[in-house]
């Protein structure tokens, strides 16, 4: 199986699922901010909840909660780690 098999964008993940960051796309300030907040390749992310309008989604990253819009989350490619707590890899 190739490395890039099963890649999805973070925006596609359902609420209450987990995934590992594989790449962070996009550019400029937004990308940099995402990296600084801890969305670096290899990080485990939890999709916590979506807002009342459905759009900003709250993600659990390294013990913090960060809200992102669909566009920003779409730039992050992840490998799904399934539902439930997968433990640290």
């Amino acid at each position: 199986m190739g490395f890039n098999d099963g890649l999805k964008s973070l925006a596609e993940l359902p609420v209450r699922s987990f995934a590992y960051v594989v790449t962070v796309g996009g550019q400029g300030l937004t990308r940099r901010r995402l990296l600084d907040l801890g969305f670096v390749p290899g990080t485990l992310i939890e999709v916590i909840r979506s807002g009342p309008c459905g759009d900003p989604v709250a993600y659990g990253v390294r013990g913090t909660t960060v809200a992102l819009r669909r566009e920003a989350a779409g730039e992050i490619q992840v490998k799904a780690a399934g539902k439930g707590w997968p433990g640290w890899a």
Partner: protein
Amino acid sequence: MTKIQELYRLAGELGDGRKEELQERIVKAIYRQAEAISGRVVSRHPGWACDWDRRIDDVVTSRLTGFPLMLLLLGVVFWVTIVGANYPSEILAALLFGLEDPLSFLFDYTGAPQWLCGMAVQGVYRTVAWVVSVMLPPMAIFFPCFTLLEDLGYLPRAAFNLDGLFKRAGTQGKQGLTMCMGFGCNAAGVTACRIIDSPRERLIAILTNNFVPCNGRFPTLIALATLFFAGSLSTSLSFMATAVVTTLVLLGVTVTLLVSYLLSKTLLRGLPSSFVLELPPYRMPQVGRVIVRSIFDRTIFVLGRAVTIAAPAGAVIWLLANNSIGGQNILKGMANFLDLPARFLGLDGYILTAFILGLPANEIVLPILLMGYLAQGTLVEPANFQDLGNLLVAYGWTPVTAFCFMLFSLLHYPCGTTIWTIYKETKSFKWTIAGVLIPLAVAVIVCGLVNFVGRLILN
């Protein structure tokens, strides 16, 4: 070649034009180290700790209860303020106006000239007394409530909820945070816009911050809502006043969204940028301390403004009301001149004059207006709230007038300090002027419409 250029060139060559990849490598290396260290340092005690944050967020940001809860919180805070401020306002007014006669007497006794006594007592003292008794109690109740919500961690959740709406308006949820700061003071709200990274969205947030009623306008709204829509302040009527104030604030939010939308489509065209906001954990506020602190802070603040702004304004307005140019009383002249456009907005000449003279600070608008009316031969000497209502009615106020006054106050233009802050933050005359004219245009349109419709209904 200069050394700096040489450095740039070499760095560019070494980077191979792959800036993004290098950045990622650097951040990754730092995070790897952070991860390793925290792995060695942080341990989790055995034992079960309920994740309260998530349980609370389940309610606070849910599709079903998120927005209703926001509205409810807003309403409850306003209700507590309206009901709680009524009694202290009465007492303060009684106390301060009770001192007016002894004060005049004192002046007479010392043999001070008549004009000095008039200016000091009927000008300065009266204005300060109005400002303190109308402004202080609502502020001293509203702010502790608001600070408790802030310390609890509710504001970022509100921004999270509102982001969807702001996105449709072409901006982002952090604008909601700057609006919350605007409740305290629009100048602070404008400065808070620095948390918005995109220059376009920051500018929109700056230009629309005025639509949140600040420190100086909010008590004015409460006072009028109480006078005109909750006469005797029975429970049901206090709900009525709360509903009026809440509606006005919601209207301010709606106007903010609409104007933001229009700006995004015209002058400040562009796509919404990103919205990245951390939602911090809820923290238990230090309730006692917050209450004492913010009551104390607000009292100092209101008293400070009363001395620095209301007192001189009182002197000026007394001079205008008691001097004539060419046989015409200055204040009366201004009011007559402005009466026609004011009628169109559902106001009268004195109200518009008060708004214009109140440019330095919104809290002096209502006192200036009262001084203006009273200078026309005293019908009623208002020494309490009820009299105040009667006085306004005696000068021809109807509920439509009250409503237009509240709308104009909510929308009109930012106070002097805020305008100066807009200039400092944007460093542009053009945008500073836009920050005045846009709200003014909105205020004229809305008040004109409401007046027209209101008259149709009432007649």
